[in-house]
């Protein structure tokens, strides 16, 4: 996984953490499938016990955003064709944790 920045400061892979002025503990990111934004798919936020906390559909750009609490979380991405990816992240108040997730459909 490379950590090279790619447009809007989002990493090409991995995690980047920046400060935000809202004071919220934000986890956001983008999902790509085969190198292109995943326009159909879902991001689920699970807490450190693996319990479901929230879910959003991916945006047109494959993006998602959660307002979490400080702590450790797992972001689970679901996309067509049985594609699935889990990423663990840490969130902090006043910080935005940015993830880049790439998925491959099972069997493709």
């Amino acid at each position, binding site marked *: 996984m490379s950590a090279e920045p790619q447009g809007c400061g989002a990493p090409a892979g991995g995690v980047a953490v920046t400060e935000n002025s809202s004071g*919220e503990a934000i986890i956001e990111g983008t999902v790509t499938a085969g190198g292109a934004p995943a326009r*159909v*798919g*879902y991001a*689920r*936020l699970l*807490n450190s*016990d693996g*319990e*479901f*906390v*929230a*879910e*959003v*559909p991916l945006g047109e750009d494959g993006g998602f*955003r*959660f*307002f*979490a*609490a400080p702590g450790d979380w797992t972001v*689970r991405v*679901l*996309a*067509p*064709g049985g594609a699935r990816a889990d990423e663990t992240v840490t969130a902090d108040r006043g910080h935005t944790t940015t993830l880049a997730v790439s998925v491959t459909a099972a069997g493709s």
Partner: protein
Amino acid sequence: MTRSDVLVDADWVEAHLGDPGVVLVEVDEDTSAYDKGHIANAVKIDWKKDLQDPVRRDFVDRHGFEELLSARGISNDDLVILYGGNNNWFAAYAYWYFRLYGHANVRLLDGGRKKWELDSRDLVTEVPERAKTSYQAKDQDTSLRAFRDEVVAAIGQRNLVDVRSPDEFSGKLLAPAHLPQEQAQRAGHIPTAKNVPWSKAANDDGTFKSDDDLRKLYGDEAGLDFSKDTIAYCRIGERSAHTWFVLHELLGQAHVKNYDGSWTEYGSLVGVPIELGAGR
């Protein structure tokens, strides 16, 4: 009541979406999802604009519901199939709402929009033309709807099921993590409530778990006393409509109410007891 009386799967919808007498309705909080693409022949209902009173915090009244369904071209004897995003939260809410106003012939698409999308099934942008009807609703069936005084009186008496996430239940968060953290004045939960997050009733793809798994979840694991009446709540009553559907429609519990005031009302009431932490 069996599962097939209240749920349909995606294959059934594909086979029947053109049938006369069957009306597909997509219900969302964010109706731009419908505008970008929806199941063929589906009409849309906006959870907020169409189902909530624009001034008071309450539902549209019986006459308003009649006007809404008439305008959407829905007749009293139509079979209404509801589906939506957010794992069918708002579709389950609409299901409960349709039942509240006496529409018996209504079912949910299992897995909702998510399962449909993950299956890569077809979505269209054409909006169907449906002739206006003269829908007749009934008075609200308040045996399905709980109000605040009843909820306070139910503490320690009835099953209270808080279906929010563990962090909302314990007081760590005030809203689901995909929403800004605002709303109620205080965090926590109603004393004696059991925390059974709605999500435990669903698979990752949004479909409901089996009846056996569900019975185990609420009975053996959460310790609900099925001989008692139950009130389900969440933050604004949409996730708890999903749990109401599970308990009342899938598991056949006789007396289950949804408290649509939920935490945004209870957590702002003066003087009511609140419990913090993981619950007992």
